[in-house]
């Protein structure tokens, strides 16, 4: 309780802003992000065209690599952190992601069931 009452009353950080760092440290952050993103991109392109791995695992691997790379971009380029000064930014992002998953997941789910439950088109035509 006592440590909570002495919380620093500082301001939040704007999305994209970093905590106070020297220029060198900031550039290093972007370099690390660029290297990680290039590695993940190269892995994605390699995995997509290779025969080395079990073929059904490729789509899953591509999606995992894409999510990882988006995470790298968010952390190293947009400077979204888990710190208390970033709570608003993270919460807005979480809500955005919720809507994205509802839209994409819901559409794919519903349309797949629609296709599975519909008789083929020629049968519908024959009934008329």
């Amino acid at each position, binding site marked *: 309780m006592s440590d909570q*009452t002495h919380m620093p*009353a500082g301001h939040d950080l704007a999305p994209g802003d970093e905590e106070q760092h020297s220029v060198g440290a900031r550039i290093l952050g972007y370099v690390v992000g660029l290297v990680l993103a290039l590695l993940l*991109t190269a892995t994605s392109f390699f995995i997509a065209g290779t025969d080395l791995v079990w073929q059904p695992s*490729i789509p899953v691997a*591509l999606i995992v690599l894409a999510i990882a790379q988006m995470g790298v971009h968010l952390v190293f*380029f947009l400077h979204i952190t888990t710190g208390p000064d970033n709570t608003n930014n993270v919460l807005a992002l979480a809500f955005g992601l919720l809507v994205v998953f509802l839209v994409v997941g819901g559409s*794919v789910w519903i349309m797949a069931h629609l296709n599975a439950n519909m008789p083929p088109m020629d049968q519908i035509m024959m009934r008329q």
Partner: protein
Amino acid sequence: MTMTATAGHAHADPHHIGVVIEHPGPAPKRIVTAYGFWIFLLSDIVMFSCFFAAYAVLVGQTADGPKGSEIFEQGNVAIETVCLLLSSFTCGMASIAADVRNRFWFYLGMAVTCVLGLIFLVLEFREFADLIVRGYGPSRSAFLTAFFSLVGCHGLHVSAGVLWLLTMTAQVFAKGFRADILRRMMCFALFWHALDIIWVAVFSVVYLLGSGT
């Protein structure tokens, strides 16, 4: 926590949750502006997710036209990806230069970002033009409609980003690193990085997943 203990902090602890919060007053304009723009970017991403959902639903509806694996060229997409990725990096360098008010590195970073963005746009335009010439335009099949609207929407965003980039460079040239110019520059950097994130989803879902099956 007794009443007497909280009574002294009646204003700082209006809901009597036992935690005293010192309100620092309204946030600086830089935070308000960037946060509002962050909300816009997230709603833009939600809009893109609708295009992705439409693409995922329609990807098999080729109407005897070409499938994705027959029209996608991975080499082209790889160059586009590297261009956007490097431009995100140089845009970050330009933001750092703007924060430390270094005109030379700011102009250099923005110029490289602009060139990389234009290379991306030219490659994408050539891909689209090539497809349309071969008769695989957006009206050929539902799959191609979804493909052109999703990738074209991202391309339009990049075009708008390049125009914004030129505007920001001109504003810094004419007005210097004023506080309002720096706020706009921060919003532009957020926009450019967000476009790169959307491109990651585009090349993974459309080009790589589409060429595999």
